[in-house]
């Protein structure tokens, strides 16, 4: 059993990661960190760079959490990547960060969190930036 966390280098993403670490410690399961990009723009600030990944790696290692970090770039959106990973690893919990969206913004762009909440087969823990 694993816990899947959708990570983005933003306050919401950090909050989700912190919560996921706490959950993983409590149930001592593997933590799967997913940070994906569709890879179709030249610049994507939601795709973590090497140093950021390294610092997460260090943080998880010092806390002694069994972990896997994945950065898929396959042209799928973040929701699909998180749901895929959850299904593949038979996840017991998905942790995501929520950010405030205007109704119009959600109408136009859709919402990654909403899709994960509706389509996941396991419990989803949604946290907000503190």
């Amino acid at each position: 059993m694993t816990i899947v966390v959708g990570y983005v280098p933003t306050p919401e993403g950090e909050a989700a990661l912190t919560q996921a670490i706490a959950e993983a410690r409590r149930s001592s399961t593997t933590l799967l960190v997913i940070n994906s990009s569709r890879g179709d723009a030249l610049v994507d600030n939601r795709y973590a760079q090497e140093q950021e990944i390294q610092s997460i790696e260090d943080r998880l290692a010092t806390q002694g959490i069994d972990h896997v970090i994945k950065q898929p770039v396959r042209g799928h959106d973040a929701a699909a990547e998180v749901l895929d990973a959850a299904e593949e690893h038979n996840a017991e919990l998905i942790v995501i960060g929520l950010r405030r969206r205007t109704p119009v913004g959600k109408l136009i762009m859709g919402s990654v969190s909403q899709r994960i909440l509706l389509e996941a087969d396991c419990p989803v823990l949604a946290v907000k930036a503190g």
Partner: protein
Amino acid sequence: MDVWSSLMDGFATALTPMNFMYAVIGVILGTAVGVLPGLGPAMTVALLLPVTYALEPTSAFIMFAGIYYGGMYGGSTTSILLNTPGESSSVVTAIEGNKMAKAGRAAQALATAAIGSFVAGTIGTALLAVCAPIVVKFAVSLGAPSYFAIMVLALLAVTAVLGSSRLRGFASLGLGLAIGLVGMDSVTGQRRLTFGQPLLADGLDIVVVAVAIFAVGEALWVAAHLRRTPLHAIPVGQPWMGRSDWKRSWKPWLRGTAFGFPFGALPAGGAEIPTFLSYVTEKRLSKHPEEFGKGAIEGVAGPEAANNAAAAGTLTPMLALGLPTNATAAVMLAAFTSYGIQPGPQLFTSQGPLVWALIASLFIGNFLLLIINLPLAPMWAKLLQLPRPYLYAGILFFATLGAYSVNLQAFDLVILLVLGALGFMMRRFGLPVLPLILGVILGPRIEGQLRKTLQLSAGDPAGLWSEPIAVGIYVIIGLILLWPFAYKLIRRNRPKNSPLLPANSGAADYSD
């Protein structure tokens, strides 16, 4: 009329509200395509050509000039913030510029690039205004044989001097000349390369060819390489420079201008060689040689000035001789023809007001670029977050619309797709695009001069070297063609000598 009063008249035309608006549109569009790697001013001008048929030629050219200069500015932003050159002429800028940005001096790098571009662009445009009439005076005395020789020189020089592989360059040139030959022979009325297809008898429209090679070819190429690990643009605030930055920048700006303008004006110019020369010079002259490789401001100031001065230099032979030396100038030349304006030395007399308005608009465009680039640099960097499928879908839409609207023939769309596939294959196999475009545009004009020469000499090929200038140019052509063999011989005799110039890695990308 002297230069000054003509130029003032030009300003009067360029500053009318309509023309000023087109200048603003031009510089904004130009900066945008300059920032985005893979899109360049040549492609943008080609895409906009059919759209601008309804405009006054003067307004259209003012917009094109803005796009051209804007592209040169925009390229540096991507180089500095992303280490990916937005334009082939800003390859060198990326070396020091990105190091500066990583060291937290992105604001200063952007500022010295923008202000240096402004200084160099203004000086370059002034030189253009002064030099072009002189070149014209000289050029009207030239006969058909000399013209033929100059055009051959331009074609060979661009093909042989730039780019990584001469063989690929000549292959591309051959393709271009072949495309230029399609259609009815102007003298005898014979059909050439039409394959019995009556729709080909008028030849291939240059707009369709340019849009296919630049826009469709590039879109297919990007579609084939869509997924890539995204990068982070280095965040930056308002560009500014301290006192020491100014002190270290102004000399490289002037030296870069001195390199850029003459190289731009030469037939084999382009902006890559002078930017590289400027970089090497600054490295040698710098009081802080230890900073080179770690983000020296001189290494951004010099090359950025050089590429903008080269842009102005390129326009000198384009306006004075009708001789384009880079892709954007070639497409602008095609634009002249499609407006029914005959490019060449007579342009200054027959279209004086248009030419001077164009030159005046370059001054205005330069100033506008400084204003929109200094405060808005962070906003331009945001453009890079645009998902490319949306971008290229839009480009393909415009390409198709433009190609169809030229003659309202569905057949042109077939040509667009076939040549677009050719453009894709050329990128796939590393063939430079510039020789092809120059071949298509200059080919028929070279043929015209050759025919004229041979008619004057009653078919005797000796007529080709009947003018002293033509003979001199053939000697230069000979030197250019023989140089690599001579170089190899010298290298073989002195095997220890290492080559002076490193491989010009970025110069193979002619997409600007």
